[in-house]
């Protein structure tokens, strides 16, 4: 597939600190790409570099083959960028904010009107369009920012936390819209909401300290953990002695004690029975077993040294 965005050794520094460490990768046209990772991993900076609000200290970003630093104006007509916090003009209404940016992009008035109506209906905030941006709810402001960036019909949409400040229903409606747009547009987003990323289920980039440490679909990322399970056993009284005894079971991985609950990972369910066998005679209150998710994968323990 044709590349929408190509990064070649893109780096960004802040003093001595490396924010982006020579990133090189491509994003295919029409794909839905999530960027996740711990705080300060460089996710938002990467979005800003892709959007053109910040220029890299070294390396090149190509938008549809155009160098975004050398031919900024050409490349930016292809992109729309929704930052995390509201960047709407606080003294204009939501609709005026959208109309103004649409006009600056040279979109016809009739097209602006029809697109506002279409997207505002999809995102269910038609009634709030006339409200001044400074007094509207942050969730509606975020929706208006998304519509504003769709108004010139960009082929690439870059969003920092697509459903930030939104209630559950608004979040669902936003994702319905984004999923519908994916394929037609390349959508790159940063999210801390891992269940949302798992549901979107397209390409996921995991960042750590300015580098991409994992890259692939959800299934591929979880491949290494597919046989792992997460176990929790709540005892009536989990003593240190008992904890140490159970933690010593060789097949138990990363055991932790939280109150009277033993939390651990294991490659097979059989591990669970081994632990139960060791704990025979102890009173238990509750048990739970679940397959690993993206959150577990991103757990600092795993990101740092993996399960094995």
């Amino acid at each position: 597939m044709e590349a929408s965005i190509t990064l070649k050794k893109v780096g960004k520094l802040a003093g001595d600190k490396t924010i982006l460490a020579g990133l090189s990768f491509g994003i295919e046209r029409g794909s839905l790409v999530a960027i996740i990772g711990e705080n300060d991993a460089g996710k938002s900076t990467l979005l800003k570099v892709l959007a053109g609000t910040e220029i890299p200290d070294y390396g090149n970003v190509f938008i549809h083959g155009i160098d975004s630093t050398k031919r900024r104006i050409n490349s930016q007509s292809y992109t729309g960028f929704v930052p995390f916090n509201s960047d709407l003009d606080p003294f204009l209404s939501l609709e005026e904010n959208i109309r103004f940016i649409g006009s600056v992009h040279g979109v016809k008035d009739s097209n602006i009107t029809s697109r506002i109506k279409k997207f505002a209906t999809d995102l269910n905030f038609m009634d709030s369009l006339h409200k001044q941006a400074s007094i509207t709810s942050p969730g509606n402001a975020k929706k208006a920012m998304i519509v504003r960036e769709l108004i010139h019909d960009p082929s690439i949409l870059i969003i920092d936390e697509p459903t930030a400040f939104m209630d559950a229903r608004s979040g669902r409606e936003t994702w319905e819209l984004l999923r519908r747009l994916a394929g037609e547009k390349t959508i790159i987003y940063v999210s801390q909401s891992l269940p949302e990323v798992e549901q979107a289920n397209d390409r996921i980039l995991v960042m750590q300290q300015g580098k991409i440490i994992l890259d692939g679909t959800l299934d591929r990322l979880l491949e290494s953990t597919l046989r792992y399970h997460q176990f929790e056993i709540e005892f009536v009284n989990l003593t240190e002695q008992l904890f140490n005894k159970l933690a010593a079971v060789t097949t138990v991985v990363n055991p932790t004690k939280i109150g009277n609950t033993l939390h651990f990972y294991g490659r097979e369910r059989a591990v669970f029975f081994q632990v139960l066998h060791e704990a025979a005679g102890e009173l238990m209150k509750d048990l739970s077993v679940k397959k690993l998710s993206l959150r577990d994968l991103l757990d600092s323990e795993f990101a740092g040294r993996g399960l094995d």
Partner: protein
Amino acid sequence: MIQAFLLRRWWLFRRRIFSTLTFVVVLPILIHLALTVGIGNIIMETIAKFSYQKWLYPGLVLIVNTVMIIPIIYRDFFDLRVNSRTLITLSLTPLSKIQLVGFLLLTALVEATIFSMVAMTIFLYLMDLSLSMLDLLYILVSMNLFGLIVSNGLITISLLTDRINTFFIVTFIFFLFIIFSSELLFEFEFYPLRISAVLKNLPTSMISNWCRGLIFNGYFDWTFFLTPLGIGLVWTTINAVLLKRTLRQ
């Protein structure tokens, strides 16, 4: 493209119509009471024997115009950059920085000119002056030329400061400097020779001199017209570069 920026000005004006109109009407009345009435009783004629009230009129209009421009430039280049960050979003549109600065500046001048025209009418009534249409046209042109220089100065301050306190302190100093260094209220003959020799070469002084030269002597001084215009245009370009650097793009 400029229509989008003009329409935005209209939307903004519509949202604060009563406060703006009150400001536009009250400001010239206050300036008249505070300056014209008092100084007019001390100075009757200029050194060249022209009516002081008539000599002062263009200066007062330029002061009002400067006051009108300050909140507009503050809003567009400081508040929208530092607080709401809308300027960053605008910088992502297919506009070059020079276009962005130019359009915002041009529409600020249009807005300030319209408001200043109301002030011009109020001053004419309060000061009981009669000026020809041509004289008023000269004042309008000088107002825009003066606004170009002042706006550029304010844009530079807005782009170089990130704290509101700093912005207002520097703007206040800049405003006082402009008022007393541009021959708006008093003739340079009242100043020490060395100082007036320097101040006469300021672009803002050239504009007030150009305007009064036309009104009182009917003389069009091309140097006093083209020099501030050239400085204003070059300064706009410098501000575009400054915006690019400030936004780190």
